[in-house]
């Protein structure tokens, strides 16, 4: 292979990477103008863009998949069998939330079985990693109780909404109990929401079975990826209907994760998503490192965490939010 680095490649590649990361603003205007006024630079930037565009065509190829699998193995040590591949960043997110210590947690160990309860308050979300590699993402205002033993994996959704990414374990079905119904999976990804006396089960990947009553008499309804069913506390399971998978994925995606970044960096990142910029006016705090998972758009939760954690006060006015010392 003939690999030569052209003299103009580096600034072009840097611009390419900065633009992709959204790391440009009005202050980079002059630098951009100087860069782009040079025709050789423009061509070098186009080379980068062409390489990026062409690399998209390799998505899903065996070689790329095996490189990705290697990345997953390295990032998610120790490796576990059949863990979904997005587990790794979830694990990081969960660790961060745990570090913030927001949610109440109760763990009881009884003869080889584990029980724990996780709750989220309003405007709080939480990712919980289970011992088998399954991941539960709690939406706001949610409580789940988790009971694992050698024979079963049982989750009770007491209220709210949770997304389940289930690690395969054919010997221990994964059961989510909500109201009187049970959703059973072996390895898949699905969402259960309890709201005003009825429950909705949405399947994103794989297949689950849903029965409206945990009693043995009820027939289990199979629900496939892209489908949803509803059931009430008393009634039967509805026939499967097309699901609003986008809503659930949107809920998942509208999240911003800070992993040991400086406060200055975190604010810069957050400000890219918010209409009203947050400005730090507390000297010396710029370089403080912070961790956390926040929902994009939920400014109140973000500001609240900063106010509490760093003893700051948020003041609004003049089209910005100023963080000052309390």
């Amino acid at each position: 292979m003939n690999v030569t680095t052209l003299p103009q490649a580096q600034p072009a590649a840097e611009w390419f990477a900065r633009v992709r990361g959204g790391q440009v603003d009005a202050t980079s205007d002059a630098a951009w103008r100087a860069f782009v006024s040079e025709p050789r630079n423009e061509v070098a930037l186009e080379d980068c863009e062409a390489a990026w565009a062409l690399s998209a065509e390799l998505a899903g190829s065996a070689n790329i998949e095996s490189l990705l699998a290697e990345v997953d193995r390295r990032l998610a040590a120790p490796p576990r069998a059949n863990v979904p591949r997005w587990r790794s960043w979830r694990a990081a997110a969960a660790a961060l939330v745990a570090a913030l210590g927001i949610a109440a947690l109760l763990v009881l160990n009884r003869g080889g079985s584990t029980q724990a309860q996780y709750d989220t308050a309003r405007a709080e979300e939480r990712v919980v990693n289970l011992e088998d590699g399954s991941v539960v993402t709690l939406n706001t205002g949610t409580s789940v109780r988790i009971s694992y033993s050698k024979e079963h994996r049982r989750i009770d959704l007491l209220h709210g909404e949770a997304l389940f990414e289930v690690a395969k374990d054919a010997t221990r079905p994964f059961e989510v109990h909500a109201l009187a119904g049970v959703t059973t999976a072996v390895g898949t990804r699905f969402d259960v929401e309890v709201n005003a006396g009825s429950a909705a089960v949405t399947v994103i990947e794989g297949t689950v079975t849903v029965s409206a009553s945990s009693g043995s008499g009820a027939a289990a309804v199979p629900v496939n990826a892209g489908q949803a069913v509803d059931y009430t506390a008393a009634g039967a399971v509805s026939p499967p209907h097309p699901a609003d998978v986008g809503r659930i994925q949107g809920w998942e995606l509208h999240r911003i994760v800070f992993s040991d970044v400086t406060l200055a960096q975190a604010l810069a990142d957050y400000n890219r998503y918010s209409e009203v910029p947050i400005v730090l006016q507390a000297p010396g705090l710029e370089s403080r490192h912070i961790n956390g998972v926040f929902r994009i758009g939920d400014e109140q939760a973000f500001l609240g965490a900063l106010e509490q954690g760093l003893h700051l006060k948020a003041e609004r006015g003049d089209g910005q939010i100023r963080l000052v010392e309390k």
Partner: protein
Amino acid sequence: MDQPTPSDGPLPKDLFRQPDGAPDPDAEAAAEAHQAYVTLLFNKYRAALQRYLCRFVAPDDAAELVQEAYFRLLRRGDLVRIEPMARAFLFETGTNLARDLRRRRATRHADQHVQLDGQELAEDHQRPDEQLAGEQMRVILERAIAALPQDTRTVFLLHRYRDLSYPQIAGLTQLSPRTVARKMAEAIERLSAALGGTS
């Protein structure tokens, strides 16, 4: 083709101003400003875009796609007012259009497969716009990706094939977001250099 064509030159400063929070009573003025902005952007980069799209499709097709990209941008109200990002958006739109065109052509050729005799098919396969997606390019790119240094490869793979943002990748890899951006630059530089041998 008969679009307004304002004179070339630097973009006026006020076009880069972010819309202020207050609801704009004059939506028409906003639409006009948007059109003016897109047109300026387009005039500044149309030649470059045309040249760029010729990498993927025949020159005639490229000229059409350049126009189509312009109309698409006009219909999008939310174009970022930061020039390098807006330009990247223009090029990405063009690239997507080129990809769609090639896929449509590929499907049509597949449909015609039964009607065409072997000779015509052989000619089809030599079209310049079919070559880029060819096996040779794939092999070169795959090798170049596999040959990236470990961290650089990790950053590239997660950003390209998992759609993770720089902060997300930073969170996973213990690299700072700044380092992630630097690794991305290094990756794309090496891949572009690897492809340079074939174009």
